[in-house]
């Protein structure tokens, strides 16, 4: 498997900041992989995202995207390969209408108009927003705006999509709407997905979870492996999936619980076997 993103010993410090925002971060993400980067607010998650496509320039270290080292000469080529959906649905909506916004990235890349028309149309079909093509952003819900942002990225046909807390400002309906769409897209096109989040449910859909704290990678592994460290996640300001919380509560009451991670269904089954052998 080829690497979509390779980060080696990345350091980044905001101007005038005492502590570095990222410290010696190394991370390789394979083509087609879905990686969730979790950490509390201020842990450096979003800074990492901005370093991947050159919105911020690292103090030291190397970033390679789709085989190209990130530098002045390559930065625009790399941005063509990496689409980012940002946190605030309103503040990334450039176009005056849905279709204009989806076209914005294509206009920037001087895609000829006939091709632009088909790409905008196809992208809107994929995010199920075609009937809203001529709507103004003020008349869309947060979830719909994020879907438009995703359409704008799909239209550019990138290899990698980064969700920079893209669901954190949405209501539960909007959140599941966007998550379902990403799952669908990833299954269909084998796009590499990097989701930056503090939502455990979002992290649970990833292939791999990377835990970031104070600008350093503390741990990484499959969601199942990581979620068994319940106490550690809580101490780092994160949530744990509900089954882990219930297991901990039962353990405190003296019940014997398995060490491995169980999802809801797994836990229900396990508890039922205990009940049956009573």
């Amino acid at each position: 498997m080829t690497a979509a993103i390779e980060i080696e010993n990345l350091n980044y410090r905001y101007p005038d900041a005492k502590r570095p925002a990222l410290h010696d971060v190394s991370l390789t993400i394979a083509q087609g992989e879905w990686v969730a980067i979790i950490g509390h607010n201020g842990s450096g998650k979003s800074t990492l995202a901005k370093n991947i496509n050159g919105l911020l320039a690292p103090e030291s270290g190397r970033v390679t995207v789709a085989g190209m080292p990130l530098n002045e000469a390559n930065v625009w080529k790399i941005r063509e390969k990496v689409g980012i959906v940002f946190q605030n649905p309103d503040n990334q909506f450039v176009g005056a209408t849905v279709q204009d916004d989806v076209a914005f990235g294509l206009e920037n890349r001087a895609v000829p108009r006939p091709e632009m028309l088909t790409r905008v149309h196809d992208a809107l079909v994929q995010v199920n927003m075609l009937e809203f093509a001529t709507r103004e952003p003020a008349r869309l819900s947060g979830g719909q705006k994020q879907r438009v942002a995703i359409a704008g990225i799909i239209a550019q046909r990138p290899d990698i999509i980064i969700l920079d807390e893209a669901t954190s400002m949405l209501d539960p309906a909007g959140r599941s709407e966007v998550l379902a769409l990403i799952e669908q897209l990833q299954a269909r096109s084998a796009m590499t997905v990097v989701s930056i989040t503090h939502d455990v449910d979002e992290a649970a859909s990833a292939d791999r979870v990377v835990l970031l704290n104070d600008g350093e990678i503390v741990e990484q592994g499959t969601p199942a492996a990581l979620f068994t460290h319940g106490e550690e996640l809580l101490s780092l300001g994160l949530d744990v999936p509900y089954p882990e919380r219930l297991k901990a509560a039962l353990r405190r009451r003296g019940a014997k619980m398995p060490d491995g991670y169980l999802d809801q269904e797994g836990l229900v089954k396990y508890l039922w076997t205990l009940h049956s052998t009573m």
Partner: protein
Amino acid sequence: MTKLLLGRYLPGDSWVHKLDPRTKLMASFYYIGIIFLANNWQTYLLMFMATMVMVAASKIKLGFFLRGVRPMIWLILFTVMLQVFFTKGGATYWSWGWLAITQYGLTNGAFIFMRFVLIIFVSTLLTLTTQPLSLADAVESLLKPLRVLHVPVTELALVLQIALRFVPTLMDQTTKIMNAQRARGVDFGSGNLFQQMKAVVPLLIPLFVDSFGIAEDLATAMDARGYQGGDGRTKYRVLQYHRKDIVAGMIMAGLTIALIFLKA
């Protein structure tokens, strides 16, 4: 604010709505120009009829146009009064010191009134039938020749487009902040001038802070989506002249000829 900038567009599919925005923009300016050629009853009558035909073609109720006149009414009446009282000539109907109402004064007053109303009707017609965004496109397209003089026309058009797009967002934010400050005991729109000015500070500062936040986010998003300045971009929205636009041009030419024949 919304009323001024956005609330004015009335969606529709009339002949006027469907004209190219460049045609409408140029024709409006041209029409306002030739109104100044009118100088007698015949020519004013002609222009009045032409304006009414355009209004009818837009299928928009006359009331919307009259509403456009309302905010200007005092300025209009003031100008008309000046004309009435200070134009000398013809029979004098009434005089008091250096003030006099004369025959010429009354006609001139009527003409000026007519001119104002027609100009307002035509510009109202433009904004009622054209989306602000299309107008921005038209301005960009018409100003394109200025690029030779290194005027950043495309950038200006993008700035204008983004400004229009964020008007509702900022309006929304304004309402929210006003509510928050009212809940903290601020009375907007009451008290003397000084108190009212003071009440605006807790509204303006958060609004500025918020606008800067939006601008920063937006710049980052545009950067990430490959925006590198105005040149070398293609356009998704394109304007195209149709047969209607030629017809509109002919009508303007015909009107001009008729005016020149009829004017004194």
